[in-house]
């Protein structure tokens, strides 16, 4: 479909407007990260006094690098586990008949609803007893549990849309149900899976409350929690410069992650796969 010039111009304008509006607050954060602590309260949009000291400060201390590693590791593992488990459950929900299905949906939703504030203290108690406190699994398991409802819902919406005939065809060709799933269904549900993975990962990345409650040292503390322990130039100063610098540094892996995955989001259903 040939694109006419007015169309091109239209899309370009939309692109540019969107990018600018989204980036204005972002550039503000970046500029905050370059302001000296003395000039943090300047009302200028761009820093008048530039400094790299915020960045050098955070990147040379292990109290930030290690949490960054924790965030990446915990987020990646939790995302992987959540997507796998959610795919299995979503497949069952979307394709199979079994009693208790709607109860499962309802309960999983209810679980996602519970205010995290009330979850924090009991989880703290359990994890201490089980020896999971301040460990990676200690955060991974709650994150998986919180990401599962969204994953199940999203993926079952996708699985439902895939034509049943494809699976039958695969079975006729001799595939086991597992093979049918891996080779036929999963690729078609890729948009849903990638979307779920991105959302779960970003949730783990951002999560703050459980991160500060269930960790005590840099052994397992994630980046958002580490942010809250930053100290400023004096005990009365909020270390906005360091926090902004840390936020920028933390966001860079996200950008890479999303850039890498975003193409898969619209791998697209092969709508021609089932003719007639």
């Amino acid at each position: 479909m040939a694109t006419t010039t007015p169309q091109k111009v239209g899309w370009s304008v939309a692109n540019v407007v969107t990018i600018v509006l989204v980036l204005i607050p972002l550039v503000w954060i970046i500029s905050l990260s370059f302001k000296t602590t003395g000039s943090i309260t300047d009302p200028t949009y761009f820093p008048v006094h530039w400094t790299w000291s915020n960045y050098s400060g955070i990147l040379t201390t292990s109290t930030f690098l290690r949490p960054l590693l924790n965030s990446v590791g915990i987020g990646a593992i939790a995302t992987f586990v959540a997507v796998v488990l959610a795919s299995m459950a979503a497949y069952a929900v979307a394709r199979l008949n079994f009693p208790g299905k709607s109860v499962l949906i309802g309960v999983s939703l209810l679980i996602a609803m519970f205010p995290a504030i009330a979850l924090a203290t009991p989880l703290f108690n359990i994890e201490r007893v089980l020896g999971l406190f301040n460990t990676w699994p200690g955060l991974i398991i709650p994150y998986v549990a919180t990401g599962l409802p969204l994953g199940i819902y999203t993926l079952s919406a996708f699985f439902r849309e895939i034509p049943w005939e494809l699976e039958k065809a695969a079975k006729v060709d001799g595939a086991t149900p597992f093979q049918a799933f891996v080779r036929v269904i999963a690729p078609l549900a890729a948009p849903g899976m990638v979307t779920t993975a991105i959302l779960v990962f970003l949730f783990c990345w951002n999560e703050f409350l459980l991160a500060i409650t269930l960790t005590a040292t840099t052994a397992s503390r994630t980046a958002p929690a580490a942010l809250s322990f930053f100290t400023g130039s004096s005990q009365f100063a909020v270390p906005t410069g360091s926090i902004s610098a840390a936020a920028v540094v933390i966001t860079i892996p996200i950008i890479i992650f999303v850039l890498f995955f975003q193409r898969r989001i619209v791998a697209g259903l092969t709508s021609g796969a089932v003719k007639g």
Partner: protein
Amino acid sequence: MTTTTPPVTVEEPVAGRRGRPKLSEGARAERRLGWMLCAPAVIVMVAVTAYPIGYAIYISLQRYILSAPQLTKFVGLSNYGAILSSPFWWHALLVTIIITVVSVAIEFVLGMCLALLMYRTIWGKGGIRTTILIPYGIVTVAAAFSWLYAWTPSTGYLSALFNNSAPLTSQPKAIAIIILAEVWKTTAFMALLLMAGLSLVPEDLLKAAKVDGATAWQRFTRIMLPLMKPAILVALLFRTLDAFRIFDNIFILTQGNNGTGSVSILNYDNLFTGLNFGLGSAMSVLILICVAIIAVLFIKGFGTAAPGTSLQR
């Protein structure tokens, strides 16, 4: 042999005859498979949340103030009564509902526009999608701080828009600012889910409609929207449930002062500042009930688009 039809008629991939069994071998296998597939997910979810929820309900029936543990005693539903008769609760509920409805509505419209943009724009797809997703990837606390600085008079570039009148201390303006912070951050969530939903719409249908003379708006409302219903349900439902429990942005921007507190802020104040675990737990349960009501309304409203219903075979 009595033939009882199975609760749901199952069309079997196994060729040929099945008769009318009590429950065919295939159907039984299907059930087992269904349960087995769901089991890991269910186990994880229940294991993590069963004890805390049970514990919270148990505590909510007691008078349990951490700073005076010797006064602990069972008080039945009086915590709930205290909350429901308190104007603070109803005020916070109203603020929460306003913030939720407005921000979800804005995010839905914007998210839909962005989804269309991300899906169909002619150049720079990767860049656009990544840019839109960045706000969602920034740690909420850091973003909230940056907004705080932007709106505080004499430290930020935005407060000049209001003649330096400290907009964060006036209730309607502060709520608007909170909504802005929420929308900037989580529109990406909606846009992402809606874009994935857009990918479910077959290109051929749209082309055929175009050939038949449908305008872009008609193509949008008559073809895209209905086919996206499951994705829309997921996006709206989860976003609403999250928005109802808003906490981080309000906490950093206003600490809930000047009448901007949501129910979660109220909950936090009671639990951690007032150390009143009994009241706080009761509030958590009430929030859960509110949220459950919202979920039920959504699912009922969306009908067959809900997952787990009306398998098309």
